[in-house]
């Protein structure tokens, strides 16, 4: 982490500047071709998922075992081993994909160190390994088949630590096209036409935001990618940054061109060292090849990207707090207006988009706004990445067209609830979102519908709960989170979260009275309507939505000291009876 990022004026390290050269479109195409040629020299490619979930379930040891097997057989020139980005079914890691020329790809789940050499035996020598056959994942499996990968399209096959790998799959072609053929107005218009909306949660139309920054007067403008993904249970941005960092950088560069910025920052959550490491490497590789930095792709466009690391503050996901943090201050939100689009970092107009939003840009430019807009609903276009977790059979990272129903996600992609228990609710949007009960299983997952149901799309956390989850306890859990993460600047959020948490604790420990429910509801409204920033405005959602759909569960806690899910221990008694 020591050599990340400089200030807005910090130059690159001297040694690197000297090797930095300018690359034109022809050279880019040549680079892609030579990488493809190189890859074709291998008879077999072993793709090992090297994103955090797989690593933590032992992918590195598996890779090691496979490498030893390859070396033992002397097959280094025939077999290429690649650490790739995320495949999706994270709970089934480590995942290994085998690509043998002229044969369909095969994916294995839960590969162990013992099984690793067996993969070689099976695919190169035709040995029969029933244990492996049992761990084969089919592409027809609904988990894969139901998805529509627009952003994560390449992440499972490319090597996030090599820019050649990205370029070979069409990387930086979009930036090249934009620089060569389009004006900034046209880029903004194209993005607007695609109907892309901010993936950070609020769903503001991206094209409109870009155009606002483009039009804002100001000498120095900035582009910021928000990778401070703080929702517990959500890891879409981390996966994207780890799996396909160049895609994010290219999207940012296109945004820089569109709004007239020469400096970008990518703000990475402090808990994501691997993402930061890969982004750092990606930036260095892109700069060395003239795909970032000065005179990009032999044009007049200059764009630098620096990484800024968060240091453990959820509120820094809020755009004004994030800017404070980038400037090295306490990450406390500041009142808007002025909006960042007019006055942001160091007073300059600043474009802030979520990392995933930038990930969508390449698809829009290369395949066209119309293609992109063919996915999704009337008002919400494209696809959205969700982190599917909780009590479903298949957990992991999924990208689905917006407008898919919750039922399809839970019962088809997710493979239903574990142990065939009943579905109780799905929590979307983390601590800013709400719970969707079973009666709305057929609701479409889009910005408007979710909002109507009292939840939000959020950044894309999706936690499925069965009848063993206690709603007041879940609400208390999220409120504890918000209480710890409240920055303390504005009164309603600072004091309100603490008091809401206190009441929810009383409900779950048996010392609440019915009057507390009204107090709780009032506090929800107060904090929601009067807080300074988005954290406060949305943090009552988990409470409010569970109160709305599961009120009888709250009442049974209070009146009967009975927790239907069997979670709460009623150790206390109310002080006051009526």
């Amino acid at each position, binding site marked *: 982490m020591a050599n990340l990022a400089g200030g807005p004026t910090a130059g690159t390290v001297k040694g690197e500047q000297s090797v930095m050269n300018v690359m034109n479109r022809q050279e880019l195409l040549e680079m892609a071709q030579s990488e493809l040629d190189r890859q074709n020299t291998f008879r077999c490619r072993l793709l090992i998922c090297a994103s955090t979930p797989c690593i933590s379930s032992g992918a590195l040891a598996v890779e090691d075992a496979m490498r030893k097997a390859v070396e033992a057989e002397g097959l280094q020139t025939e077999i290429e081993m690649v650490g790739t980005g995320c495949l999706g079914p994270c709970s089934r890691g480590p995942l290994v994909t085998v690509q043998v020329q002229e044969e369909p790809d095969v994916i294995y789940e839960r590969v162990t160190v013992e099984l690793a050499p067996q993969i070689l035996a099976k695919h190169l020598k035709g040995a029969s390994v029933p244990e492996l056959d049992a761990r084969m994942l089919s592409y027809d499996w609904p988990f894969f088949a139901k998805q529509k990968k627009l952003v994560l399209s390449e992440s499972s096959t490319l090597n996030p630590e090599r820019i050649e790998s990205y370029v070979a799959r069409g990387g930086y072609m979009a930036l090249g096209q934009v620089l060569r053929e389009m004006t900034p107005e046209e880029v903004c218009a194209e993005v607007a036409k695609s109907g892309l909306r901010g993936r950070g949660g609020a769903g503001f139309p991206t094209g409109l935001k870009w155009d606002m920054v483009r039009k804002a007067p100001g000498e120095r403008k900035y582009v910021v990618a928000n990778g401070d993904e703080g929702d517990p249970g959500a890891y879409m941005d981390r996966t994207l940054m780890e799996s396909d960092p160049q895609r994010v950088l290219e999207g940012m560069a296109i945004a820089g061109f569109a709004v007239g910025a020469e400096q970008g920052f990518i703000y990475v959550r402090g808990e994501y060292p691997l993402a930061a490491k890969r982004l750092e490497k990606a930036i260095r590789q892109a700069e060395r090849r003239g795909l970032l930095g000065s005179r990009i792709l032999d044009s007049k466009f200059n764009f630098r990207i620096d990484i800024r690391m968060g240091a453990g*503050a959820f509120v820094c996901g809020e755009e004004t707090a994030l800017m404070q943090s980038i400037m090295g201050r*306490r990450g406390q939100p*500041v*009142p808007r*207006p002025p909006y960042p689009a007019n006055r942001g970092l160091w007073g300059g107009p600043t474009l802030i988009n979520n990392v995933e939003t930038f990930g969508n840009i390449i698809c829009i430019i290369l395949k066209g706004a119309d293609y992109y807009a063919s996915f999704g609903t009337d008002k919400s276009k494209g696809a959205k990445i969700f982190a599917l977790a909780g009590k479903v059979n298949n957990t992991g990272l999924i990208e689905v067209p917006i407008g898919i129903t919750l039922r399809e996600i839970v019962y088809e992609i997710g493979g239903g609830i574990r142990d065939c228990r009943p579905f109780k609710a799905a929590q979307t949007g983390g601590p800013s979102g709400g719970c969707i009960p079973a009666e709305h299983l057929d609701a479409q997952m889009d910005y408007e519908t979710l909002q109507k149901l009292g939840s939000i799309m959020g950044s894309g956390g999706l936690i499925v709960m069965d009848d063993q989850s206690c709603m007041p306890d879940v609400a208390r859990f999220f409120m504890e989170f918000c*209480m*710890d*993460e*409240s*920055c*303390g*600047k*504005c*009164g*309603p959020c*600072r*004091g*309100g*979260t*603490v*008091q809401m948490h*206190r009441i929810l604790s009383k409900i779950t420990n048996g010392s609440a009275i019915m009057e507390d429910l009204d*107090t709780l509801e*009032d*506090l929800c409204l*107060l904090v929601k*309507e*009067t*807080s*300074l920033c988005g954290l406060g405005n949305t943090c009552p959602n988990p409470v409010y939505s569970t109160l709305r759909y599961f009120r009888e569960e709250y009442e049974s806690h209070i009146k009967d000291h009975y927790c239907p899910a069997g979670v709460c221990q009623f150790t206390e008694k109310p002080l006051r009876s009526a």
Partner: protein
Amino acid sequence: MSVVTLTIDDKLVSAPANTSLLSSIQEQGIDIPTLCHLKGLSERGGCRLCVVEMEGNPRLFASCVTPVAEGMVVRTNTAKLLKYRQMMIELLMAQRNHVCAVCVQNGHCELQTLAAKLGVTSVRYDYMCPDLPMDASHERYVIDHNRCILCARCIRVCDEVEGAHTLDMGGRGVQSRVIAGMNQPWGTSRSCTGCGKCVQVCPTGALFKKGSSAAEMVKQHDFLTWILDGREKKIWHWR
């Protein structure tokens, strides 16, 4: 300077563009509660007491940080706003140990006065009773964290008017606390000039002069506008 017209509580008024809604409201003689706002200091927008309803917008707006705009229709005193303001005051009172009876500023306290004005005669929330210290290490002043409402007026005046920046906010959330220097005893901070501006702008009994006893501390902050006016117009230059 351009002028905009807006409606405040059914009354058509005009105001210079780029000024705050709060100043327009106050100009109408409307008594709107504020705590973190103080004329002469930058706006923090933290206490949220000055929230108003805006026609055609479901959100509430803190008027101190909302610029006036043409055609705005604003309500400053609805039943909902009163209810929210009461709740905000109660939340503040529950957070620290505000024992008015034994406070140096009893009778002159902005929090106490606002509570009475808004009809807050009891607090419906649990008192949090944090165990907070008092720092009497300064030669002349005392800071009592038990009575602090985190309005940050002291921090702003120290930075913006005195220019010492001895004070700042430490910690986060409900654990936030006004700190001096490296969270060291105030009296040992060498950047403090002992000017006492922080004491004078503090709305509660959190900052007071040493030796004051219950109800003895009366504060005045007109010096602020006076100093700032003088600085801006440079009327005091004796050379």
